[in-house]
Every structure is written in C-alpha cells, then in structure tokens.
C-alpha cells in the first residue's frame, strides 16, 4: 500500500481546505477511500448508532498536481482508511499560503497520513511543517460495509432555498423542539414545521425548482400539490446547514414519504450525499 499526493495551486489548496472543513463539521470520524481517480469520505452508521449515511466524492484531478497510489493488490487498487477529518483540517489549516502540500501515507509508530507543508519565507531558508495524522487501515473484508448507498425511488425532489436564510430559521426552530417535519411537493413548495404543546410554527417556501425526474413513469398520477413529508432530528439538520463552508451550487432535497430524507450537495466538482435518519411517527 502506497499513497502520495501533492497540491501546488493555492486556489486548489484553499478549496480543498474548505471542502474538508465542511466535512469535518458534519462528520467526527469516517472512512477515507482512496482510489486512482477519487477521494471518498464515507460515513455509514448502523441504524442503532444513528443511521446517518454520508457519501462524499472529490475527484483527485481537481485538487492534486501529483498523485500516485498502489492499493492493497492489483485487482483491488484501493485504500480504505479510518480518519478524523478534523485532524486533517487542523493539519492543512496552516497551509493557506503554502507553496505546496504533500500528503503521504506513512508508517511511523502507527499508520499516519503525513501532511508536509512548505511555507513561504522571506529568506532563502524554507519552512517545512509536518503533521502526522493517525489513521487506521480498514481491512479488506470490511470494505463491503462502505459501498455507495443505493438511492431509493424518491416521492419528491426539490432544490433547497438559500442555505443562509434557511439556517436562521432552523436555528430558531431548534430552540422550540427537537424534531422538524420537512415536507415538499412537485409544485415547488417546501414546508418546515415544528410543533409543541405551546406553539406550532411552519415556514413555507414557494417557487422552488423541482429537478426533472429521471423516471417519470411510475408515479405520474401523483398530484403535484400533494406533500411528501418526513420528520428529522432538528439538531442534525442545523449542524448540516451550519457546517457549509462552501456555498454549494445546488442542494437537492429528496424525500421518500415518512422513510427517507436525502440531501445531495453539488459544488463544482465535489458532491456530497447525506442520508438523514427519519424519526418514526
């Protein structure tokens, strides 16, 4: 197993930092899957421990100038590592003005992702900062646990409104109750509501875009006004919204009535899928 990559372009470094920053805000610990073309950050919680699933793809070519890897074997040319994204972020946070960053898989006393940062100086001497981020190697037999989650047939898909205003609203709703009902329809409407003994609050968005459905056939008879809804943990939703350090080009919310809430974030080349556990009602 071998991995080394080098980031040189300053805008790539900053973009990489922001993307990792976003990931670290919503995931404490996850699996980093390294393939010849892509970095994946994967979280696949068991239902008993929360049931969150996150799948994030970073095409390496958009970030790395040099990229070399050998997987566990020729057939399975991949590496699976368990990492704490926040540690990686800490390591590259110093690199905002760096000439280059090298990331290597090393074996010190334990397996590490070693981040070498070359910082600019006024004199001829170079300043090299080295961080060792401990990781653990995920054995081959565990790999099937980290497959891309299958997408169910969604009842509704809708583009989310501006994250910034949505964040305010969800933060306020968080102070009222623990769970929030998310509802949307094919008429471009999105509804967020909380309700307690004391108060019920609901916010309505109109004129949002419904992305075109790939398979129109199965539910053509569905009324565009009919809402599909699901109840989710408000703190998790707030955390997801406040973690955004990049303003994504597009955030799509997909709902399977009372079963699944799935967010799909797309920002330039990076994509992130977030399956948020639904609270049974």
């Amino acid at each position, binding site marked *: 197993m071998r991995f080394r990559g080098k980031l040189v372009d300053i805008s790539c470094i900053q973009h990489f930092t922001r993307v990792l920053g976003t990931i670290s805000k919503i995931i404490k610990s996850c699996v980093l899957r390294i393939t010849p073309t892509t970095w994946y950050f994967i979280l696949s919680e068991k239902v008993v421990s929360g049931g969150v699933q996150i799948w994030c793809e970073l095409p390496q070519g958009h970030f790395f100038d040099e990229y070399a890897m050998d997987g566990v074997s020729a057939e399975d040319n991949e590496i699976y590592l368990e990492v704490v994204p926040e540690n990686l972020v800490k390591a590259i946070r110093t690199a905002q003005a760096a000439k280059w960053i090298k990331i290597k898989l090393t074996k010190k006393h334990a397996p590490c992702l070693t981040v070498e940062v070359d910082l600019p100086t006024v004199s001829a001497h170079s300043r090299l900062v080295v961080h060792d981020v401990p990781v653990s190697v995920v054995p081959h037999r565990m790999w099937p646990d980290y497959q891309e989650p299958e997408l169910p047939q969604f009842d509704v898909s809708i583009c989310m409104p501006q994250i910034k*205003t949505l964040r305010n*609203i969800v933060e306020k709703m968080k*102070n*009222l109750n623990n769970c929030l009902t998310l509802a949307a329809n094919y008429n471009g409407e999105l509804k967020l509501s909380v309700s307690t003994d004391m*108060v019920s609050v609901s916010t*309505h968005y*109109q004129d949002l875009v419904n992305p075109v459905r790939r398979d129109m056939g199965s539910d053509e008879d569905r009324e565009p006004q009919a809402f599909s809804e699901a109840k989710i943990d408000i703190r998790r939703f707030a955390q997801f919204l406040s973690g955004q350090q990049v303003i994504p080009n597009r955030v799509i919310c997909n709902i399977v009535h009372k079963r699944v809430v799935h967010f799909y974030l797309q920002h330039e080349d990076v994509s992130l899928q977030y399956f948020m556990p639904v609270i049974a009602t």
Partner: protein
Amino acid sequence: MALSTQQSNDDDQYVLLAKLDNVRHVSTILKAIHFKEIATLFASPMGLKVTVEDAKCVQANAFIQESIFHHYIIKEEQVNFKINLTVLLECLTIFGSSAVPGVSTSLKMCYAGYGCPLLLILEEDGVLTDCSIKTLEPDEVLDFNFLSTNVINKIIMKSECLKEAFSELDMTSDVLQILLSPDPPYFRLSTFGNSGSTHSDFPKDSDMVESFQCTQTQTNRYKISLLKPSVKALTLSARVSIRIDNRGFLSLQYMIKNEDGQVCFVEYYCSPDEDVDEAEH
C-alpha cells in the same frame, strides 16, 4: 384569488388584528423585558403593553403604542392574556434578528379572543412563516402604586454613561445602593462585593444629565439580581429617567428609538431591599 378574499373575511373574526412592516420594531422592545419566560399582554385601543414580573419585587412593562403598527384594530376595550415570551420572541425573530439592510420582515398578528391562540404570520422575501402560540389564563399583575406626586428624587439622563456603570456591576454584591441627593455626591451607585466596595458618582452638572430634580437625600438598596435584567433595556435606550418615591420604590423609564425614529418606552419598577431599621418601625 380565492385565498385572499377568504383571508379578509377571516379577519373579521379577530378581536385583535395588528400589522407591521418591520417586525424588529416589536421584537427589540420585547427583548428589553425578556428576563422571565412568561409575560402578560394587555391590548387596548392605545396599543400593546407587555408585562414581565419576577419575585413579586420587580416588574417590567414594554409599551408598543398603536402608531408603531401600520394597521391596528381592536374590537374590545381591553384584551389580555399570558404568553410564553421566549417562544414569542423565537417566532418573531425566526428570519434572523440582525438587521439586514433592504430586507425587513412583515408581521400580521391576530387573536380571536379568550382561549384562542395568538396567530403570527411573518413574511420575508416571499417566504411565509405561520406561528400559532397558545395563550394562557391571565393573572393579576402587581400594582406598585407608584404615583408621580410621591416622587422625591428624579433624574433624566442620557443612557450612555449609565450603560457602562450597569454592565460592569459587581455581581458578587447582593445589592445595588442608589444614593440621590441635592448635595454632593448627588447621584452615586455603590456595590459591596467580595473584592471590595465600588462607588460610581455622577455629577449633576454633567452633559449627560438632562434634568436633576432631587429634593432630599435618599439612600436605598435594591437586589442586584433584580436590577441586572434592566441592562437589556438600558443598552437599547437613548435616555433614561430614574425616579424614587417616598417609600423607596424605584422606577426606571427607558426611551427607546427604533430605526424609523419612532419612540417607545420600557419601564422597570423595583421594590427596595428590606431594610432592618425600617422593618422595626
């Protein structure tokens, strides 16, 4: 449109209907008295009065006169109910509480009468939020019987200089002692904390003092924990009137100007800390 005609018919059923272009005019005033969860709301043709009390010793009143609203209809002489102020404020500020230039949240507030919830409809940038807050059985509020004819000492001053004195109060002290006198030191605030006593003196000929009408020397103590919440009103206000009557009761009246230059008042009443000497009389 069917919806809008239906709404205007519906409006007839409310005993109280108030509309406002900028919800911040109401929310900032209410924040100034938000030191307890439950508030009592009195609506009359003059406007709204919201009262918060604590420990039967302190009372805060916020007055939002009818002219603050651009539409204000009340069908009864007086309407009153108790409401959870924390929840009310969360609802009023659901779109965020900081001022964003060019964006304001409009509010429609309706109440259909005894036993009905308070309905709020907020709108910002085409996004609608409906809130329905349960109202509670009103209790009797304290009557401090504070008559202006019994006032012995009175000062009107700019809030600025009091702000610092109040926000830096030594909270290890149980009481705040207020001395008002026609002779030096005129106006003195004292605390007696763990690390020593402090005295802040305000000369009567200071630019900050706009009116000084003190007839006899009065020294009274007030529980600092009861007075501390009034800092919220103080920081918002432009001017403050400090009055103490012959029983030692304290009245603080704050003049608060909103972004449109309209003036609202918030007042605090506080009873003096029981003095051993006086208790014997």
